[in-house]
């Protein structure tokens, strides 16, 4: 076999082996023994509520579900709850009695728009959050309407070895690419087997 073809084939088999490792990793299920909570709550008109705040790593997945009897704004922020509260207190002391007024939240989000990992206006929120770095994660449920919202909140933290979807995507690409690159090696292997003598003095009986 040509030297360059041999090199390409070898690279192909290596890429395939890495792809298989990724595939194996993506098949490892996430741990179901993480923290979780589920409860009913109410959010007053023009107020926001923070039902979840924690430090998270890329090896953790947070699943958030929020159902409400009216449309609410749900945000997943990459800041701590205390950072949000401290910012509001330092900027709006004395204007409103409550620090969890929607106006304050909107002002904060205007200044820290990069901290929004995900947001949605809905009556049924269901989102799986996987951070890409070690970060604070805070779930905010904001009720911009003029009447109280009854909400049902659920969150669950699960541990994982690696972000399964990202690793599976890599496996999906690397295995076929590796196999295609390794085709010359497969052909060479087949030809060598085909050339192998099937009769004669050297063939073991």
């Amino acid at each position: 076999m040509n030297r360059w073809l041999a090199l390409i084939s070898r690279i192909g088999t290596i890429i395939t082996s890495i792809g298989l490792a990724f595939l194996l990793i993506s098949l490892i299920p996430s741990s179901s023994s993480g923290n979780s909570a589920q409860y009913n709550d109410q959010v007053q008109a023009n107020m926001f509520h923070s039902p979840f705040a924690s430090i998270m790593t890329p090896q953790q997945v947070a699943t958030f579900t929020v159902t409400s009897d009216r449309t609410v704004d749900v945000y997943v922020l990459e800041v701590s709850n205390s950072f949000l509260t401290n910012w509001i207190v330092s900027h709006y002391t004395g204007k409103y009695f409550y620090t969890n007024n929607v106006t304050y939240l909107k002002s904060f989000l205007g200044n820290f728009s990069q901290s929004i990992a995900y947001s949605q206006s809905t009556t049924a929120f269901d989102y799986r959050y996987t951070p890409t770095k070690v970060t604070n994660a805070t779930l905010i449920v904001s009720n911009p309407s003029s009447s109280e919202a009854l909400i049902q909140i659920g969150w669950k933290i699960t541990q994982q070895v690696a972000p399964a979807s990202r690793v599976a995507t890599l496996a999906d690409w690397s295995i076929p690419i590796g196999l295609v690159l390794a085709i010359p090696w497969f052909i060479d292997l087949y030809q060598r087997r085909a050339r192998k003598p099937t009769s004669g003095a050297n063939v073991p009986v």
Partner: protein
Amino acid sequence: MEVFCFLYAIGAFIFAGFSSSLFGFGTSEDSVAYFLTSSLLGFPLFIFVILNLKNVAFGLGNDLEKGIVQTFFSYPIKRRWILSAKLLSAVGVGLIPFVGILTSGLYVLAPDVVGPHLGIVLLTFATSLSEPLLVTGIVLLVTLLLKRGALALVLGIVTYFALAILQQIVSVIAAFTNNVAGLQVLSLISPNLIASRYFSTQSAGPFFFGQTSSWTPTFGDVLAYTAGSYAIVIIIFLLGYLYFSRRLNL
């Protein structure tokens, strides 16, 4: 090779861990990148060391014993190129997938940790690889001197484990007696010691080490010790080259 690449790829995810105990102390992002990279180096680094020592001791040792190197000497090729080719296949081919696959795996796992702090990730690899490369250099020298691989391989493995035990002993002495001289000397062979110390103090403050807080290295110290350790590695390999080129009689 394929098996090792498979193991490196698995190891990048299985062994990676975010040391949660450091979060509460206002850990810097550099420290997170350092500790994340360090967390996965244990087992893959051990595989790398064994692979390296086997390739150098048995690969070169067997070629010396069987007279293959003697045949190479009859070719119109300079001796140093013969040794370079041997070392490239023994060390280089193992080193590239080791760093490449583990860094890529880390990037897939935590892109916002590795991407902006790639320099720290590579520095962590550099500080961790210096000691195995030094042991590889010693094994190369012993293989050339003895002209056989088995004893050099045993010596290499013993040296590697002895250095690991010595690091623990010196660290304990430093913690108990506040005498960091041994730690500083050993950091020239294993710069991972000083790097670990620097990034730990970055995340936990100078009191993290209790009595030994008298030595709080700077980032410049980490770079200087790393450069120093690689200077020692280069000297060992140069001695090997000199012996192979001028003194080796077969």
